[in-house]
């Protein structure tokens, strides 16, 4: 048994150096050289300033922007560090609501969301992804139905013809990969950037 102690130390250290130090550092170097944009977090620059990441959702509240999904992320309460407060799209603390199918809290929240959206656009059925929170709280996408649902509001707030806004939604809709994988979706940040660009 004693003869197993030397390999227990040195094989462990050697493998730790290879898999815990060399591997991540070399991969960081190589990935950064081949895919610099992705390796840094797919950041989007506008006028020389970072406005966000193409992959990370951000909060939109104004009428003139398309809104993403509700987000359940939190942040530490500045007044009491043992508690947390709601902080939608906090990209430094991802997470979901974790509310189950018989939760009264969830039921009340959904009801409120549905009523608000129905008041905004009574003509269309409320898309489910616009009232449910995502798993990460950072979902960058909404379904094409959820984008089209918001077209009347956005068009009115921006004084743009609805067709024009609807065209932008269509242009920013991504289909399934090879017609098979994933779900059709619209990246909210990309759509809103396109909207801003069209307004200029």
């Amino acid at each position, binding site marked *: 048994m004693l003869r197993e102690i030397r390999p227990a130390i040195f094989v462990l250290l050697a493998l730790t150096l290879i898999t815990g130090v060399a591997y991540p550092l070399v*991969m960081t170097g190589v990935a950064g050289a081949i895919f610099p944009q992705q390796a840094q977090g797919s950041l989007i620059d506008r006028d020389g300033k970072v406005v*966000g*990441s193409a992959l990370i959702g951000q909060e939109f509240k104004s009428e003139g922007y398309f809104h993403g999904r509700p987000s359940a992320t939190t942040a530490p309460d500045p007044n009491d560090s043992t508690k947390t407060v709601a902080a939608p799209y906090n990209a430094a603390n*991802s997470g979901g609501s974790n509310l189950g199918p018989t939760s009264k809290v969830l039921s009340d929240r959904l009801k409120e969301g549905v009523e608000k959206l129905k008041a905004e656009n009574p003509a269309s059925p409320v898309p489910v992804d616009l009232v449910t929170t995502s*798993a990460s709280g950072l979902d960058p996408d909404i379904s094409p139905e959820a984008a089209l649902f918001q077209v009347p509001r956005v068009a009115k707030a921006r004084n743009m013809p609805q067709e024009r806004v609807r065209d932008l939604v269509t242009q920013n809709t991504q289909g399934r990969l090879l017609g098979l994988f994933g*779900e059709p979706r619209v990246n909210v940040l990309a759509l809103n950037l396109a909207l801003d660009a069209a307004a200029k």
Partner: protein
Amino acid sequence: MTVIGWLQIILYCIVIVALVKPLGWYMTRVFNGERTFLSPVLRPVEAGIYWIGGVDERREQHWLTYTAAMLLFHVGGFLIIYGLMRLQALLPFNPAGQSAVAEDLSFNTAISFITNTNWQNYGGESTLSYLTQMVGLTHQNFLSAATGIVLAVALIRGFARASMRTVGNFWIDITRCTLYVLLPICIVYTLFLVWQGMPQTLGDYVEAATLEGAKQTIAVGPVASQVAIKMLGTNGGGFFNANAAHPFENPTALSNFVQIISIFAIGAALTNVFGRMVGNQRQGWAILAVMGVLFIAGVAITYWAEANSTTMMHTLGLTGGNMEGKEVRFGIVASSLFAVITTAASCGAVNAMHDSFTGLGGMIPLINMQLGEIIVGGVGAGLYGMLLFVTISIFVAGLMVGRTPEYVGKKIEAREVKMAMLAILVLPLMYLGWTAVAVVLPGPVSAMNNAGPHGFTEVLYAYTSSTGNNGSAFAGLSGNTFFYNLTLACAMFVGRFFMIIPAMAIAGSLAGKKSIPPSMGTFPTTGGLFVGLVVGVILIIGGLTFFPALALGPIVEHLAMTAGALF
């Protein structure tokens, strides 16, 4: 449920089956010590490790020595993680300025990663420095995965060998597994993931000014290199709190598809390694068939339940499935499929929040883990878990016809059956026992996020996941308390090592037996009858053990939900 949804599921199964033979062939060569196409590069590194470790390549170990070597190796791994977490504030590669992690949380996390569980009572981006993530966690992702694989190989050698005292050399197996199997795949895999959009940087968290003028701090880091081994090694510990649901940890539908393939790839291929080493590949396919039957049944139920959605959403006129806690880019089918796969294997990564699944949709992941994660299972752990069930099944078949049972040429006798039962019984003792303790204590009860039966399921899920070394969670449970940190660590430790030691005892005992050629009276273990028998034994043993607990949690919740009850 849609046609496109089912096409994704079928395509997934085809890819996994197609990978079994080539990967099984390659791994068999690696563990038989033969040359591979990577030897010119890796052999000098391998020889160097043996040289500094003082490992004699010709010496093999008795099963007790093999197991002891494995345990010593884990003591070292534990100390590295625990030390890094406690000292990370003083060490480099900490751009976000994370402070030292508390004792109980560090203890829980260290146990969690050496047991291949990767249960996370912390949020990665808000707790750990890059150094802890890389040197502590990434390295243990490799080594705990390699440990599972080499233990399965040692057990296979037990079946394959005759009249021998040894089952292999732990140091050689672990080194070869890491260098020849895990590392090369991970290098290619990391680059693929970065191409898909996963960050791989040591830079600071990014400060962005959003379109509406708010400030958004975006956590980044050396994500891709850790995610590659996290999935391939069925570890499942997320770089970020939201795990594979985080857009940085699973950016696209394609990255998602490749991630679920990498969960099953090695575990499925090990059935082929088994077949090759015992000299008949059909023995391996029969075991994979048992896994396949249970898997498809699970996928169908979860997919149906999630697409069918919940009563509260129906009442509000919301269609399109239960999207609470799911991401738009994955939708219902890819989220359901991921949940079943991650719990069938002992991966535990999640791309949707299981806590928000419907009663029945969340019950399947729970059952997968309670069966002992034998449906493909954790790398290695799944195969040795399944071989324990096979041992019991063969024993039952022997009782029916009144003959000493035999499997792949080995007589299965009292010692093997006792050891298999010990390993199988230890799991429910942990997850049922600790759940019972937790739900009668006021403190642990107050940690639940949901009221009613769903809250009970959160606790049951936590102990099931930790005992099964899975690591996925009904994440609403606030597990970072002294009570949960300690009891969950206990469940993880017992669930891992009290399954491994009996399995290794069987390996040692079988290796010493003579091999007997099949005769007229031998029960064929490659056909449909065998597959049916094993599936039956798994469901009966499993069902009798945990059905009462399920009745109190997901089943009653489903009934309450259909009746429109809210808690």
